[in-house]
């Protein structure tokens, strides 16, 4: 009888503990099923592409951050539907070590892309893609194709085609919650190396 009481007490403590852990991690559950386990993730191929200001951007510049890499085009209806979601995600999560990177596959490049960025008030970095980049990411014949990349630069999930906003948000959230120390350490090292001596 006494053993039963102790078991019940321990169970109650455990349940209470789980409740508080859940509460402290936010009020939404996260769908973990869509992400690959970290041990099975492959490194996202690096690239060097130009942004709207002519600066060369490498994917590896973003190591330590969670990256949503979106291959899209102005002529792609499903891509246009997702872009307002990405604008919000960028705004809401930028301070948590998250960046959206859009790779446009428009053949006419900035001529078509810049007016669109202005119209949509896109708040994240857009790059002009090329065949080589598409090839190393598997061809990317279908748009949108969205890669979620973890802080270690590994592909955690690929969404081919229009995906639910919830699925993408859940994936981002889970990656942001996993091992934030990596990003914090990098920021600290970066800050220390920039400090005048």
């Amino acid at each position, binding site marked *: 009888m006494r053993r039963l009481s102790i078991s019940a007490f321990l169970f109650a403590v455990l349940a209470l503990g789980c409740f508080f852990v859940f509460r402290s991690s936010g009020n939404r559950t996260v769908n973990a099923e869509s992400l690959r386990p970290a041990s099975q993730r492959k490194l996202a191929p690096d690239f060097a592409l130009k942004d709207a200001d002519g600066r060369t951007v490498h994917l590896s510049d973003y190591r330590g951050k969670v990256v949503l890499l979106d291959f899209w085009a102005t002529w792609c*209806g499903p891509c246009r539907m997702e872009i307002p979601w990405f604008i919000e995600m960028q705004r809401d999560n930028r301070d948590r070590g998250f960046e959206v990177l859009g790779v446009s596959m428009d053949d006419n490049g900035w001529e078509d892309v810049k007016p669109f960025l202005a119209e949509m008030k896109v708040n994240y970095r857009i790059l002009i893609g090329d065949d080589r980049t598409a090839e190393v990411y598997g061809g990317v*014949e279908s748009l949108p194709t969205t890669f979620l990349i973890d802080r270690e630069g590994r592909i955690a999930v690929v969404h*081919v085609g229009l995906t639910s906003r919830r699925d993408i948000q859940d994936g981002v959230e889970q990656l942001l919650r996993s091992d934030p120390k990596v990003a914090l350490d990098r920021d600290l090292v970066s800050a220390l190396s920039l400090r005048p001596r």
Partner: protein
Amino acid sequence: MCLPFLFAQGSGHLTVGAIRKVEGRRNAAVVARIPVTVEAGYHVNSNAPLEDYLIPLKLAWTAKGALEGGEPIYPKASTEKYEFAEKPLSVFTGSFEIAASFKVAAGAPAGPGIAAGKLTYQACNTKMCFRPATVDISVPYQVD
């Protein structure tokens, strides 16, 4: 991870069937009919999309040989509403024909020839779009 799947996603969702030979004397009007089939579950933008940002279906001739003109006559498009677009879109689905009205040139030499063109299209389904693609078009002709 999904790379093999991505490779398998070709943009070949439109096929052009065999084009029958057109035949006529000099100065005669002839019509070429180009049979097109869009894969089930997919659509291509019509020749006159309702949104500026969409890429239209377009037939353009690159070498007409002994034929002149060739202005494409597209079928009537259908208007469909898709989840990803606020407004209905003007699209082609299933099988249809594009006609091209030619005139045999006055000075054309008698005999066979080929008029060549390119059909540009951009296909989507309800969830994704595919990069613009081009199909070579060859219209065999015979000048009598």
